[in-house]
């Protein structure tokens, strides 16, 4: 794994998200109320809604277009909807957010 510094945790609003452009497409970084950070595809598998614009609650996000709810741990759609978003390794080093470039790169190569 090769960790790269993406930014400060306060760059993401509490219970909000920001987008990172990567070779595999836009990835949303979510920050929960508990200051956990999750990385997942910004694109809802349903109609392509930007998940980074959704409401973050608990460890879930709700798509702003049609209210699909995804668990940020597994990337699985919750409730009656069936779908999956890709999730990516992310870690916090103090206040710094680190993404694993190899996982992004590998995906791009694949």
């Amino acid at each position, binding site marked *: 794994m090769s960790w*790269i510094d993406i930014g400060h945790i306060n760059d993401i609003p509490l219970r909000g998200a920001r*987008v990172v452009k990567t070779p595999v497409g836009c990835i949303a970084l979510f920050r929960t109320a508990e200051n956990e950070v999750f990385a997942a595809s910004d694109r809802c598998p349903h109609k*392509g809604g930007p998940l980074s614009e959704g409401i973050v609650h608990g460890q879930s996000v709700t798509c702003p277009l049609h209210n699909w709810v995804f668990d940020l741990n597994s990337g699985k759609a919750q409730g009656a909807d069936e779908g999956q978003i890709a999730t990516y390794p992310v870690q916090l080093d103090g206040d710094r957010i680190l*993404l694993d470039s190899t996982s992004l790169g590998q995906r791009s190569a694949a």
Partner: protein
Amino acid sequence: MKQKLVVIGAGMASGRVLEHLTDAAPDAFDITLFNAEPRGNYNRIMLSPVLAGDQTYEEIVTHDDAWYAERGITCRFGEKVVKIDRELKVVEGENGHVPYDKLIFGTGSNPFMIPMPGHDLDGVIAYRDLEDTQQMMGMGAGNKVVVIGGGLLGLEAAAGMAARGADVTVVHIMGHLMERQLDPAAGYLLKKSLEEKGITVLLNAKSTKIAGKNGKARALLLDDGTELPCDLLVMAVGIRPNTALAQDTGLAVGRGIHVDDQMITSDADIYAVGECVEHQGEVFGLVAPLYDQAKVLAQTLLGEEAAFKQRSLSTKLKVTGCDLFSAGDFAEGETREDIVFRDPARGVYKRLVLEDDKLVGAVMYGDTGDSNWFFGLIRDGEDVSEMRETLIFGPAYQGGGSADPLSAVAALPPEAEICGCNGVCKSDITAAIEGGAEDLGAIRATTKASASCGTCTGLVEQLLQVTLGDDFQMPIAQPICGCCDLTHEDVRRLIKSQELKSQEAVWQELGWKTLNGCHVCRPAVNFYLLADWPVEYQDDPQSRFVNERKHANIQKDGTFSVVPRMWGGITNPAELRAIADAAEKYDVPTVKVTGGQRIDLLGVKGSDLPYIWSDLNKAGLVSGHAYSKGLRTVKTCVGTDHCRFGTQDSTGLGVKLEKILWGSWTPHKLKLAVSGCPRNCAEATCKDIGVVCVDSGYQISIGGAAGMDVKETELLVQVPTEDEAIEVVMAITQAYREGGKYLDRLYKWMVKVGLDWIKETVVDDLDNRRALVERFELSQSIYRKDPWAEQAKEAPRFAPLADLTLEAAE
């Protein structure tokens, strides 16, 4: 051979005896009915609605001429009984004798008149019969009325006359109103509600004298020297059993006519029933025991075994539109503890008094929905220690987290009393339902339940639902979402009453099951908090749907639409030029004119938003809030400026309204329009709030919509001036903000609270109207500003946090 039965007094108790008798044995008696009032039996409890103008006398008649004729009852109405000869068994009326085998006294009670100087003047009346009521109905604007007595009757009289416009003062000798039924806190709330209706209430006030002029009452004097001028003085200080005739007849009389358990007086052929009797030292004024007596008496006359038993009583009353309930003993004591729930905003007060783990008393004001359940606990002396924590929230909160109010009804035992007025228990009603009574009307017709005072209507409906299941449709309260067990309404109430001013407080105090809600409840809670605590609570963008967070409407491809505000639909070349420039600069693919009289720029990239806003801001354009659950636009026509039909400056008013209301958050979107004449070119009558100008002023109507539902507005009020129109619109907006359920358009809120309630509290109650306007202004001091200008400063937030595509390519 038929027995001769004579009944003296056609009141509610004796009327009920006649019903039972003629139903059970139509041919057993030859009945003669005397009544001093020139009419038959009517529902005296309902005189207050007659006074208030909600019902007519015809509607409260229990037995009409046809009823008596059908049952072969000889009526001698308007005729007093002069004398009774017990040896010859003859009743002597003013117009002749009637022999009897059995005689019933149903002489009722007389109002007690305080024998103070002047009590016999003209213009001093009691509140007892239709004549009194009619005299009170003559009081209107410009009349001054004093009511002595702060009990139920006095307050009903006061409220009825105040509703007719009279200037009413209630004089009460005790320290709080209805002291026999209410504790001081509930009495305080009641006083406040009366004062809001414009009634003056004087407590601890001792009347000394009624001053007269030309034989007519002029003023009431109090012992502190206060003089209260009056055109009419109503004494409503209590009733006394009417025993004069019984005494003359030689029957045993104490406070009332003595009767035994079979309602037999000291003469074996003479019975008494109703307010005139005394049974085991008690006299009676509420309708429930009177109906019990009537049933016993009818059975006795038919030779059946029956005995009247006094029951512990609860009082459930409706005074001037306020629900009250009290039962048991609610005095304070060292061994007693209180559980109190208050909701100041809704005017709800509930107090339970516990002693030795038992509920011994309860007082409720404003919300009496669960009163039957509490009354059952008091009556049965049940141990409540296990549910003490949640007791005050009522049966829905007991046992296994069942939030279904129906389960409480389902759990009632068959003998549980549903209708206190008519003594109808649950099994009577379920039997009626099984017998084919499938709606409220049928239940009333077959069992009489909810047919008197009507306060048990909700309970009867719930029973219908429990018994019939899906065949009976009744809306039930739903929790907001899976995160909690509370309805929107409950959450709103609790946020106000418990003064919850942060999301954390709401999650904690209201028992949220999730960490911080979900996309359903959190926007609702965010709105409730900012609407109720505009100063203390900080709006949380992360609890808003993307449109309100981004201040633009998200489109299906993830781009946004940008709509600058055009006040009242008015624009100018400079603004249009700025819009055109922005459209070109940011490659806006679609420029569209909206239905709200402005221009929509569709297809703006999210990252461009702060820049296009900044450009538009420079030309003086601000956010149009085309995305918000808040004020959208005020659509106008050209009014008197250009139109040959215009009656007022509709454009000017529209602009003013939009400048006052913009930026305010409401439960759902809020659209207004102002039309300059009834031709209504601005389509004001399908807006949430519409103003139609007419020659004599401004017609304000509310509750329109043209979306999933198409609704025409209903007229709220017509006001003469523009200033007043603005005030009413602000007040109605604030009332909707404070009371509406999140995502209910104004018309849905209106259906729930009722247009009449809105008229009463928002329009007619000037103090409340002003208070609403003040609260609206306070909130607007924070929210009446352009979010675009603020957000434009945060431009970096709209860009990606990082761009790894370049690095990866290297």
